[in-house]
């Protein structure tokens, strides 16, 4: 028989978002908090990110991923948060029943009063970008290779080509070089870098690994194992120029071609989704269209810095606590946040003006294409610019952020929408 266990808040995912949400819910007075993760150890993707570069904002220290995670794990433990590891969440209903499966308790149903979804994201695969050619061993996502190398201690190749200039790919280029493997090149179809500029400098330039912009892989060759890839140039419309084809021998092709928020469960519950971010539509409390279902971290949109993930997780946890403590009005007024080209999206998509009384609201955005000159990001309420921030440049690989201060409370309360624009700074 299936028994039902009850918790106040159930958090799905033990990455930085989930841990921060759990700790924050507890600190805000929630009695029982359970974190569930399918992995054996808590920490999420950070466990395989052994490079440093985490926590500069939060701790003012440059930490490797596992150390950053460890701080939250220790805090979760000291807060007596229950961790249910090596456990897959199979299903969640809109009345907060979570069905899980693992080796020791089998398939069980858990009842919550509020839920925080923090399942992170997964990588786009070969099929999604439809690379033609054979289907040999040796085509892996960069994250799979990262886990093999950093967690399992196994080398999945000797001679690599990397498709896509995402951060994981660039970080792996350096890691593999340090392991004595050869990284032939990184190939990127767009005319600009997809990941952070600092990773380009530290992971590619410093190791003499060439980056080929405006290039893609047109074909994979090899019967049993990858033997080579065909690299071609593309024109401005991303059309392949066959006459530029070059065969590059290699035994492994790594794909770093984008991350997709892991939202199978979210969709099944019936939460409204944003087709651009691939995550739920949220307000600044990180509540979804279903009251009591909150989201945090990469499951909402792909972040580039973990510090923001933790901060937003903290916010989600805090409001999940308010939700079950009944000092919560699910019908509170929300106004839309609207972005204009070249901004591609903004999170949150809606804000609750009255929360400005307690704290400032941060808006995170991405642009569709790079602008390599000083720009001004401006926030308007009903035609009037109320604040702006200058950036020396904006790039799709680097998030743009702007904060609405508490002092804007009256202005925001009085308006029907908030609008964001990016303009060249004169």
């Amino acid at each position: 028989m299936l028994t039902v266990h009850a918790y106040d808040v159930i958090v799905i995912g033990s990455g930085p978002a989930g841990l921060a949400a759990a700790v924050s819910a507890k600190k805000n007075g929630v009695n029982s908090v359970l974190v569930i993760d399918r992995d054996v150890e808590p920490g999420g993707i950070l466990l395989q990110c052994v490079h440093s570069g985490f926590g500069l904002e939060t701790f003012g220290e440059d930490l490797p991923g596992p150390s950053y995670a460890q701080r939250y794990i220790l805090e979760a433990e000291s807060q007596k948060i229950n961790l249910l590891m090596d456990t897959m969440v199979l299903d969640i209903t809109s009345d907060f029943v979570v069905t899980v499966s693992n080796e020791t308790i089998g398939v069980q149903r858990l009842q919550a009063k509020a839920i925080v979804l923090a399942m992170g994201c997964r990588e786009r695969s070969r099929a999604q970008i439809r690379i033609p050619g054979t289907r040999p061993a040796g085509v892996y996502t960069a994250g799979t290779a990262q886990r093999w190398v950093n967690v399992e201690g196994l080398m999945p190749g000797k001679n690599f080509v990397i498709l896509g200039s995402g951060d994981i790919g660039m970080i792996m280029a350096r890691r593999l070089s340090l392991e004595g493997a050869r990284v032939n090149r990184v190939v990127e179809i767009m005319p600009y870098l997809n990941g952070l500029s600092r990773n380009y400098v530290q992971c590619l330039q410093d190791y003499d690994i060439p980056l080929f912009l405006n290039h893609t892989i047109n074909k994979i060759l090899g019967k049993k194992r990858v033997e080579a890839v065909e690299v071609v140039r593309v024109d401005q419309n991303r059309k392949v120029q066959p006459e530029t084809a070059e065969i590059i021998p290699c035994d492994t092709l790594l794909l770093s071609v984008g991350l997709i928020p892991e939202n199978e469960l979210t969709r099944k519950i019936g939460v409204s989704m944003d087709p651009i971010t691939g995550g739920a539509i949220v307000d600044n409390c990180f509540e979804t269209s279903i009251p009591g279902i909150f989201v945090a971290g990469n499951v909402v949109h792909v972040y580039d810095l973990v510090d923001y993930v933790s901060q937003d997780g903290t916010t989600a946890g805090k409001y999940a606590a308010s939700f079950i403590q009944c000092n919560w009005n699910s019908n509170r007024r929300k106004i839309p946040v609207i972005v204009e080209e070249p901004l591609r999206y903004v999170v949150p998509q809606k804000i609750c003006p009255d929360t400005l009384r307690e704290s400032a609201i941060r808006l995170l955005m991405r642009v569709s294409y790079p602008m390599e000159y000083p720009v001004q990001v401006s926030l308007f309420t009903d035609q009037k610019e109320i604040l702006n921030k200058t950036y020396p440049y904006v790039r799709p690989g680097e998030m743009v952020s702007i904060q609405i201060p508490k002092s804007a409370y009256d202005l925001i309360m009085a308006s029907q929408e908030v609008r964001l624009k990016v303009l060249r700074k004169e």
Partner: protein
Amino acid sequence: MDSYDVVIIGAGVVGCLTARFLSRYQLRILVIEKESDVGAGTSSANSALIHAGYDPLPGTLKAALNVRGNEMWDQLADELDFDFERCGDYVAAIGEDEFQQLQILKRQGEQNGVPGLKILSVDEIRKRIPNINPEVSGALFAPTAGICDTFAVTIAAAENAQMNGVMFRFDTCFESFLVEKHRIVGIRTDRGDIRCQWVINAAGLYADEVMHQAGSHPEFMIHPRRGEYCVFDPACFQIDTVLFPVPSEKGKGVLFFKTTHGNTIVGPTSEFVDCKEDKAVSVTGLRYLEEQMQRLIPGADLRWTIASFSGLRASGNAICTNSDVDYSGDFLIESDKTVKGLIHCAGIESPGLSASPAIAERICLLLEQSGFEMIEKPYWNPRRKRRPCFRHLTNEERNELIAQDPRYGRIVCRCEMVTEGEIAAEIHAPIPARTYDAIKRRTWCGTGRCQGGFDMIRVVEILTRELNLSSEKISKNGPGSEFIFSETKNQRSGQC
């Protein structure tokens, strides 16, 4: 030297079903296969349709064996316990011109002995398939057509044969025949000689080369004809049937079909290639699919793809043995005319899967007719049971299973909900799954939206543990396709 009564070359659907049908007799049987698993060739990369039989030209072996084979599937699926659904199929005429062809097809089918063929009106077909091209002018419906789990058919047949005493040898490639006085006495493989009285050539794409080793039919050639497919994400698009365009000289055309697994697939293309191993997916192929699929379902979009693959048809040039029929592309199934003790099945392209039980039946008959002594076993078990599949169980059943073996509680592939228990069971099954692809074909692990992104590492780990091998030995599909090259520096120096 090993000695057998019958050696079957090739563990595709034809070889495995033949082994299974022959396993009811008191014979020592061996199946050899050059790949590391059963069904690694064409039998795993096709449309998985059990054709009704209206398509082949009347009078051909293809027509006769298709229709006979089709009748055999209910019993086969029941005994071997694999997914099979007689869902019927449709041939849709787009525009008035094509409507005529439905009548021709129907008449041809009736001549072949296909029961229940029916021409449906525009309204009827629109009702049954709402998103069909609005220019549809009618459709042919064949209620006896079906779909099956093509991986499971071959595996189930091989397992049942194994349970009844048939031996299997993988990673073993046929090279030549050992002949004495015009009679087969054995074969030479890359792993040594094997003595036997009879050889059955079920080598798929290579059946011509095997045949030529015996000196027969030098004029017979197999030209690989590639068919490419795209599998759609069920969240983006699903069709609950099998939908063909009207056939042309190029074959049955690009169709949409559902699989027993619930996915929808579009394909195949049709293109002759030079190499019998060229299972690449091409830019031109994808473009062709994109174009052709609009004819049946306007708006269908290749961006819905979660996987693409291709299979090679073993297209031969065998002249139909029925002299009234002018056709040179028939199945070639016969006892060898020059040496004794050899039976060929060659040119087994579509409808080869549909016909496969009838082909196996015919091979038994050819053996009997040659005077070979075939005595039935007193205890032959025609049944094989599938192992539990977590995905299809109720939560109560799942918990019973987990109570027996906790590994059924540990989910390895989240998209397809495959557990460690299922994977371990396949590794220790009668025909053991020893590679990643072998596990994929048996459990559907890694076939979902994330395409192995999460499970691959865990499956490699489970294979390493269960087979008691080092990680460097675990492969995608046999020697040469290993995943891992070595340990990392830290691991090697023991620091980690």
